[in-house]
């Protein structure tokens, strides 16, 4: 199995498209950092307006932690697209390439091959996420240093710098979980498709579609919203409240796990019995 995963990873990292993800993240991180370098004070000033009336603010709120937090906010929309570029190509790419005929006529079970492919896509996802977070932290540190993290939601939380790193650690683990759900969705779409555009567009459409429906169609699908995996894509930020909402976190974790298992099970079932016509 390890040998198969090595082969799949080798193929992933020999494909130029694999580096689109890393390039895009490097670009996003750099742009956000530069943006904050030039406009950060102003933006924060605007957000902190109601505090500025009554308080003198001092200290460095634009720092590696705040930068990473802001960049993580793009996680739930950018990362799925980047993940689908690779995960969505894992199965359909072989069909499109004609290499399925070579691969699936080897004396190895389809399930093994699929497992290796899924783990390789998952490793890519984890690497992409770790790259994003570590690059944000490092670039933020070099440009701004560390400091307290300001989290602006419906309330403003200011988390002390020494109370922050563990949150990023857990947020990363949660991010891995929710992106695993995205990976398995892309993987499922990949098994249904014979080209890689379908899974990429499909993943994106499902995530954006469900998010929009959740927002605008509240009256329509309101009761279903707590059970959609898209609801919990941004839930990594539950680790950035003063007191953790463990009930909500647990629910989010269960929903992600349930979808991941469902997506993967369906993929295996479908693919094991699929007639390969490509």
């Amino acid at each position, binding site marked *: 199995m390890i040998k198969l995963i090595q082969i799949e990873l080798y193929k992933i990292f020999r494909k130029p498209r694999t580096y689109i993800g890393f390039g895009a993240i490097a670009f996003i991180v750099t742009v956000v950092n530069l943006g904050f370098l030039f406009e950060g004070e102003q933006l924060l000033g605007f*957000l902190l307006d*109601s505090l500025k009336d*009554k308080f003198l603010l001092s200290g460095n709120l634009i720092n590696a932690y705040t930068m990473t937090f802001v960049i993580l906010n793009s996680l739930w929309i950018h990362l799925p697209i980047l993940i689908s570029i690779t995960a969505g190509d894992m199965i359909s790419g072989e069909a499109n390439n004609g290499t399925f005929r070579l691969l699936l006529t080897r004396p190895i079970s389809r399930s093994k091959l699929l497992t290796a492919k899924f783990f390789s896509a998952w490793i890519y996802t984890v690497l992409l996420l770790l790259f994003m977070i570590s690059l944000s932290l490092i670039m933020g540190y070099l440009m701004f240093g560390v400091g307290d993290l*300001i989290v602006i939601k419906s309330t403003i939380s200011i988390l002390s710098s020494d109370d922050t790193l563990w949150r990023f650690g857990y947020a990363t683990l949660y991010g891995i979980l929710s992106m695993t759900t995205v990976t398995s969705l892309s993987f499922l779409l990949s098994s249904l498709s014979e080209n890689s555009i379908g899974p990429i567009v499909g993943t994106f459409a499902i995530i954006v579609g469900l998010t929009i429906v959740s927002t605008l169609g*509240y009256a329509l699908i309101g009761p279903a919203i707590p059970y959609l995996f898209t609801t919990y894509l941004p839930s990594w930020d539950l680790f950035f409240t003063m007191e953790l909402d463990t009930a909500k976190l647990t629910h989010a974790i269960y929903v992600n796990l349930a979808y991941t298992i469902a997506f993967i099970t369906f993929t295996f079932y479908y693919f094991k019995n699929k007639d390969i016509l490509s």
Partner: protein
Amino acid sequence: MKTLRILILLSIFTLTAKAQDAEPILNKLVTKLEKVKPYTVDLTINIDVEFLKIKERKAKLVYNGPDDIDINSDDFMLMPKNGAQMEYLGIIKNRSAAIYEGTEQDSKGNTLTKIKIIPGKNKDGVILANMVIDEKKNRLVKMKAFTESNGSFISEFEYGNNLYDMPSKVLLEFDMKNFQIPAHLSGDIDAVGKKDATKKETTTGKVVITYTGYKKK
């Protein structure tokens, strides 16, 4: 006619007499505060604002004179603009009128003097300050100040055995605008499309500052 003049004089005298009652109290306090030499003190700041979640902050205050105060902290810090420092010294010194308003008892049975001050020069935007002074100990105990454009604030001072008889604790209370932010800006997806009807336009902010370890500079 004469009676009237006497009456007017009497009333002026009464007013002046009351004012004279306030003046020495204030002057005594000013004298004490002006003797304060530069010092440093450690601050612990606890902020209790509905929309703000922040843990206790620590800072160091360096006092070089009433108009030369530095506050340093390694962390991000919020310091109330009004009421925490010795700005009352300025209000008292620049008073255009001070009115003695009688006395009240605190919880321990101490008699405290109430004085209303109208600042002369528009010091810190304060247009009226009600002060409660412990005459015996020569300390400001409480002040409610009304500003021109920034609402009102209440400062309560607690004392210990400190250098220059400086306060050990200041409790502040003030009204402030509530925090409103478009959900898409905060990235708070849960809040999108939901309007919080219970959210008021203004909210009360409370800050408790503890002063420890006064040291001469």
